[in-house]
C-alpha cells in the first residue's frame, strides 16, 4: 500500500473544535488546583504580599489585574477563591474582579479585517512559551485559517502585530521599526503577562516597559502563557467576529 499523505490525512478525520459556536472544553483551558506554597518574598509589592507580580489589590476594593497574573497560584487558599480550573475565568469574575479577565479590546477593533486578517508575531524577549502557543493556532485542533486569519512574515503585509514577551532593551528599536513598517490601518495585540505588564520580569534590568507604553495597544490577551483558545478569542474580538458578551455566557 503506497504511503500517500493525503489519504492518511483524510483517514484521520476532523479534529478541529467548534469554537466559538461552542464554549471551550476543560481540555482546552487546562487547570488543576494545587495546594498553596508557604512563603512569600518581601520584595514583592503592591498590597497583598502573596502575589509575586502585584496583581492582587485588596484596598479600596478587591481587584485582580489579570494582565499581571502569571497563574502561579500562590494566592490559592488566601481568601480569594481564585481557582484556575476551567471555570477559573468565570469564577474570578464573580469575585468582583476587574474585567480585564479574558481578552479585552482596550482601544479599537477593526471590522474591515473580519474576513481576512494577517498577523505578524514578534517576540521581544519571551520565554518561548507564548511563541509556541501562538504558533499552535495553526494546528488542526484550532485551525486559524478557517477564520480567515493568516500568519505573515513581513510587517509590510501585516494587518496586526502580536507582541509577546517582556520588552527587552535590545528589542525596543526593532519593535518600533516593525510597527512603523506596517501600513495603515493596523492593530497591536499584546499577548501574555510579560507583554502586558512585564510579568515576573518586571524588576529585571533588561525590562523596559509594558508594550502599551511604547505602542498603542488595541487588544490585550492575559495569561502565562495564554492558551490557544484565549488567543483565538482575542483575535476574533479584534476583528469583531465575536462580541464580548457571547464569550462570557
Amino acid at each position, binding site marked *: 500500500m503506497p504511503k500517500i499523505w493525503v489519504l492518511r490525512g483524510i483517514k484521520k478525520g476532523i479534529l478541529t473544535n467548534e469554537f466559538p459556536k461552542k464554549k471551550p472544553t476543560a481540555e482546552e483551558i487546562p487547570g488543576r488546583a494545587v495546594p498553596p506554597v508557604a512563603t512569600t518574598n518581601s520584595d514583592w509589592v503592591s498590597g497583598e504580599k502573596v502575589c509575586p507580580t502585584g496583581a492582587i489589590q485588596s484596598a479600596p476594593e478587591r481587584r485582580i489585574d489579570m494582565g499581571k497574573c502569571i497563574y502561579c497560584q500562590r494566592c490559592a487558599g488566601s481568601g480569594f477563591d481564585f481557582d484556575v480550573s476551567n471555570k477559573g475565568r468565570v469564577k474570578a469574575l464573580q469575585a468582583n474582579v476587574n474585567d480585564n479577565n479574558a481578552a479585552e479590546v482596550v482601544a479599537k477593533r477593526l471590522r474591515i479585517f473580519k474576513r481576512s486578517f494577517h498577523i505578524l508575531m514578534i517576540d521581544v524577549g519571551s520565554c518561548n512559551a507564548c511563541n509556541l502557543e501562538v504558533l499552535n493556532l495553526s494546528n488542526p485542533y484550532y485551525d486559524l485559517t478557517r477564520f480567515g486569519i493568516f500568519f505573515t512574515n*513581513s*510587517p*509590510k503585509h501585516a494587518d496586526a502585530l502580536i507582541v509577546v514577551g517582556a520588552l527587552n532593551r535590545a528589542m525596543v*528599536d*526593532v519593535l518600533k*521599526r*516593525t510597527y*512603523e*513598517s506596517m*501600513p*495603515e490601518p493596523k492593530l497591536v495585540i499584546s499577548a501574555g503577562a510579560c507583554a502586558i505588564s512585564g510579568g515576573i520580569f518586571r524588576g529585571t534590568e533588561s525590562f523596559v516597559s509594558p508594550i502599551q507604553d511604547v505602542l498603542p495597544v488595541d487588544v490585550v490577551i492575559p495569561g502565562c502563557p495564554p492558551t490557544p483558545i484565549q488567543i483565538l478569542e482575542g483575535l476574533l474580538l479584534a476583528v469583531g467576529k465575536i462580541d464580548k458578551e457571547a464569550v462570557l455566557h
Partner: protein
Amino acid sequence: MISGTILVEIILCIFVVFGIGTILGPLSKKAAYSLGIVGSLLGVLLSLLVLVKGEAVSIFLWRVTAASSAQLVISPFSSYFLLISSLVWLGTCLYSVRYDDDYPNTLSSLLLLTILSMVLILVSGDAITFLVGWESMTIASFFMILEGKGNSEGVRSAAFLFLAFGEGSSVFIMLAFSGFYSSVGSFNFLSTSGIIGPLGSWIFITSLIGFGLKMGIAPFHINEWLPIAHSSAPSNASALLSATLTLMGVYGLINTVSHLAQYELWWGWLTLAIGGISALLGALFSSVSEHSKGLPAYSTIENNGMIVIAIGAYLLASYYHLALLADFAMIAALFHAFSHSISKASLFLFNGWISKVKRSFDLNSPNIISGKGIGLARLAGIFTVLSLAAAPPLAGYVSEWMILEVLFQSFRYGDLTSQIVGTLVGAVIALAAGIVIVAMTKVYGFGFLWSTKVETQKESGEVYGGKALSGSLVYLFALIIGIGVGAPGVFFFASNAASHLLQTDAFSTFVTGLLGVPAYFVILSGIPFGGFSPTFTAVFMLGLLSVPVLIARLGGTLSIRRTHGWFAGNDQPAHSYELYNSFGYSTPIRIMLRFLLRTKESVVHRGVLNNTVVLAPEEYVVELEVLDAFKRFYDLLAKWTIWLSTYVSKKVMPGRLGLYLVYIMIAFTFVLLYILFTVA
C-alpha cells in the same frame, strides 16, 4: 518631386562634414562632435528621403575594370540601415559633446573616422568600396579601443583581439566576394540581385562566417564582449561598437543573402542553430556578468543571435515557398536590428554616465549619484532596460514578438526536421528571453539604484549636469517608445527597404485594422495567425494605469506615508558589504547551471590567524569563477599560433644563409620537375 541630384549633394555633404570633423578632432573635441551631430542629422534626412521615395540613386566614381566601376549607391535598403545608424550617431555625439572629457582629443577624430567609414560601407555600390570602408572601420575602431582605460596590457590584448577578428572577417568577406565575382564577372554585384550560380553554398558560408565574426555570434562571440569589457572602452565608443558595428554585419549578411536567388535547406538549419546558440550563450553570460560594459556587450550577442534566427527563418520559409512567412521573417529581422541598436546605444550611454560618476565599471560598487536633475535620466534608464527585456509596448517587445511569432509558425514548413528545428530554436530563445530579464534588472537595479547612506554621503555626489545628459538620453528613450508605439511606421520603412527581397507588399498585407482598432495600427503575423497592436496597447495601458490614480486623487483618499525598507528588524545597512549585491543576485544561476558556465568555487588562500580563538584559526579567500569555454579555446588557439610562428621563425627561417640556399635549391628542383612533367 525630389530629384536624384539633391540626394547626391546630401551624400557629399555628409562625407565632407564627417571628414572635416575627423581632421578637426585633435584640435577641438567639441567642434568635432558638433560636426558629428550635423552629419548625423544629414544622414537621417537622406535616409528618410530615400525610404519615402523608394528609389535608388547611384553615383559613378571611376572605372575599375572593363566590367566594374566604383560606385556609390543609395538604395532604400541601405538607407534603412543608414537611418538606424544615424539615429544612434546622433545620440552618441550629443552625449559626447558634454561628457567626453576624460579621454584625449584623438578619440573624437577616431570616432568620426569610424562613422565616416561606416557611411562608406552603407553607400558602397561595389565590392572594392565596400572593402575599403570595412577595413578603415576596423582599423579606426582598433585605435579607438586602444584609448580605453584600464590596465594597459588588458587594453592592448583586447584591441589586438578585435583587430585579429576584424581582419579575419575581412578575409572571409573577400572570399565571399571572390565567389560573387566568379559568378557574375564584375564587382558591381551589390547593386544587382538575383544571382544564380554554382558557388551559392561557398558564398553563403563564407559570408556567414565573415559577417558573423563582426556580429559576434557564436562561436566568435568573444570578439564582441572582450574588447569592450576588458579594455573598458569609452562609452561612446562602446555604443558605436556594439550598436552600429554589429549592424554593419547584419547589413552585410542580409545583403549577400539577398543577392543569391536560390537557398538550400541546410542553410536555414545552420543559421537557426547558430542563432539559437548565440542567443542562449549571450543571455546566460550577460546574466552572470558583473561588468557594466560587459553585460550589455553579451546582450548584443544575444540580440544578434535573434536577428540571425530571423534570417534563418527567412531562408527556410523561402525554400518552402511560404511567401507570407518569409516576408514577415525578413521584416522581423530588420525591425529587431532597429530596436536593438537604439536600445543598446541608450544603455551604453546610460551606463557610461553612471560609471563616470562612480569611477568604476563594477556593478558591485555602490552608486553615488544623487541630486537634482536625474529624474529624466532615471526614466530613460528604466525604459531602455525594459525595451531590452522586451516589455510591451516598447520597441524591444514588438521585435521580439515578431521573431517569436515567426518561430511559432514553424509548423508551416514542409518537412518534419525543419518543423522540429524551428520549434526547438523557439524554445531556446524563449529561455534566453527569460534569462535576459535577470540581466536587465541587474544592470539597472544594481548598477543604478543600489546605494547606501554612508557611501552616498561620503562622496560629494556630484551629478554630471543632469539636464544635458537627460537631453541625449531623453531623445533616445523617446525613440524607443516611438518605435514601439509607432511600430506600423517602422514596418512601412522596413518593407520599403526590403522590397527587393519581399514577395508581397508587406505593408498593406500585414498592417491593417482589426476588431475595432482603426486601420494601420494592427500588425498581423500571419494570415491567419496572430496580431498585435502596439499603439492600442500603449493607449490601453496608459488609460488603465491612470484610472486608479485619478480616482484616488479626485476622491481624496490618496495618502502617502514614507517609511524605510524592511531589513528583518535591523537598521538600514550603512555599508555596501551589508547589502545584497549584484554578484549574489546571479550566483544562483552560476551554481545551478554550473555545467554550462563551468563554475568553479574554490578557496584560494588559507592562512593561520594569530590572535583569535582556537576554534577556527583560519583566514581564507574564496572565489567563484565562471568561465567562457570559448575563450579558453581561443586562448589555446593563440598559444598554438604563437608556438607555430616561434617555431617557424626559429627553426625554419632562422636567418642562416646556408639554409635559405637549400630552400632555393629545393624550390628550383620542384619547379624544374613541374615544368618537365607538364610540358613534356
